[in-house]
């Protein structure tokens, strides 16, 4: 086996941890092949793996992100237009530090500075959808081809969605006060020590925020993995069912959860024969749209623009789901 393959298996997929947990399950007298033993193995291994990866990843990624505060992103994007600017906005969306409570201030800051809606929405769609940490977790749980395909289609949705919203000519559908907001460039360059402090604080903050989602997500994943018969799962969400992608998307949209919590559920569902497209559609719907973020967005944009945003993102997710279900066999 190649060095890269070995590193990938041990560091990213953590096969050593899987073996260790299996040994631990045996040591307490459970059979990892049994239902109970298998559930315990899945739960312990996934929880430990996700928290290790989460901590290491968030630290490294936050350090990189500290070089790209939203103010800098806004300066980079200022004065640009066209499809190239949408692509740049979508790419910057993946590395700008983001939490859902910042999406509205960013929307106001970008719009007030005169960035076109097309660019602002490309950024706002890609930012939660294609997060660096989630990409590496996808590679860990599934594989690199799936993770890279996820990034590619996520960016396509962001670029296409932003472009469509720009074409609709809804610049007047923004709440009046937004354009009157003064534009200030308040950021200062962080010192290396500040970047480290920022990265450490991000780890603590994100782990504290997502741990309940991870535990619930892995719990549901473990239950599906060992207790729900594959026949029931595939009868409800199987690849041959035309409604599987729309159902997964509609269930996912109002949910407010973290991608780290949805990944273990996705893993278990794919193991039961649910199409990759259905699972990706579910994860994208959960992360890109949620009821709290829609309610917040309503305060800065008028209903037609909000409806267009929801329609465009939903359509993009549906298209990706159907596409990936058609080509699942390329990956698995």
């Amino acid at each position, binding site marked *: 086996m190649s060095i890269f393959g070995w590193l990938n298996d041990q560091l990213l997929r953590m096969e050593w941890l899987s073996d260790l947990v299996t040994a631990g399950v045996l040591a307490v007298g459970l059979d990892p092949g049994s239902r109970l033993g298998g559930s315990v193995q899945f739960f312990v291994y996934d929880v430990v793996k996700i928290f290790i990866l989460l901590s290491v990843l968030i630290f490294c990624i936050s350090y990189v992100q500290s070089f790209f505060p939203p103010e800098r992103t806004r300066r980079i994007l200022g004065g640009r237009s066209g499809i190239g600017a949408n692509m740049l906005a979508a790419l910057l969306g993946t590395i700008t530090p983001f939490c859902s*409570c*910042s999406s509205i*201030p960013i929307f*106001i800051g970008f719009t007030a500075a005169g960035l076109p809606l097309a660019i602002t929405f490309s950024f706002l769609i890609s930012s939660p959808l294609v997060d660096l940490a989630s990409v590496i977790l996808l590679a860990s749980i599934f594989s690199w081809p799936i993770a890279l395909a996820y990034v590619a289609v996520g960016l396509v949705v962001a670029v296409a969605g932003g472009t469509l919203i720009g074409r609709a000519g809804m610049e007047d559908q923004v709440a009046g006060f937004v354009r009157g*907001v*003064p*534009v200030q460039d*308040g950021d200062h360059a962080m010192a290396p020590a500040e970047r480290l402090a920022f990265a450490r604080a991000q780890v603590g903050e994100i782990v*504290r925020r997502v741990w309940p989602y991870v535990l619930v997500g892995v719990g549901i994943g473990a239950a599906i993995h060992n207790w729900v018969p594959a026949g029931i799962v595939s009868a409800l969400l199987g690849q041959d069912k035309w409604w599987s992608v729309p159902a997964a998307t509609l269930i996912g949209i109002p949910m407010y959860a973290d991608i780290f919590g949805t990944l273990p559920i996705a893993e278990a569902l794919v193991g039961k024969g649910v199409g990759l497209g259905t699972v990706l559609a579910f994860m994208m719907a959960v992360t890109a749209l949620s009821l709290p973020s829609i309610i917040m967005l309503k305060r800065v944009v008028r209903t037609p623009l909000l409806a267009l945003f929801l329609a465009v993102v939903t359509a993009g997710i549906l298209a990706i789901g159907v596409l990936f279900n058609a080509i699942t066999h390329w990956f698995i």
Partner: protein
Amino acid sequence: MIIKILGSGCRKCVALADNARAAAAAAGKPAEIVKVTDFAQIAAYGVMSTPGLVIDEKLVASGRVLNAEEIGKLL
């Protein structure tokens, strides 16, 4: 002294408000902590990543939860 915490009320804003209160107490300075949750007002300070920290109408930090020691130096 008036310390304003800018943010929609997420966990980070609560933590920052607590740190600010502790910093003011440690410095022995009477301070009024005001939470600003209205997006229009937050944006008026030019803040794009919450939480923001404003001391006597001057924006001193945004996007990061400063600890009490760091805030103490800014008071």
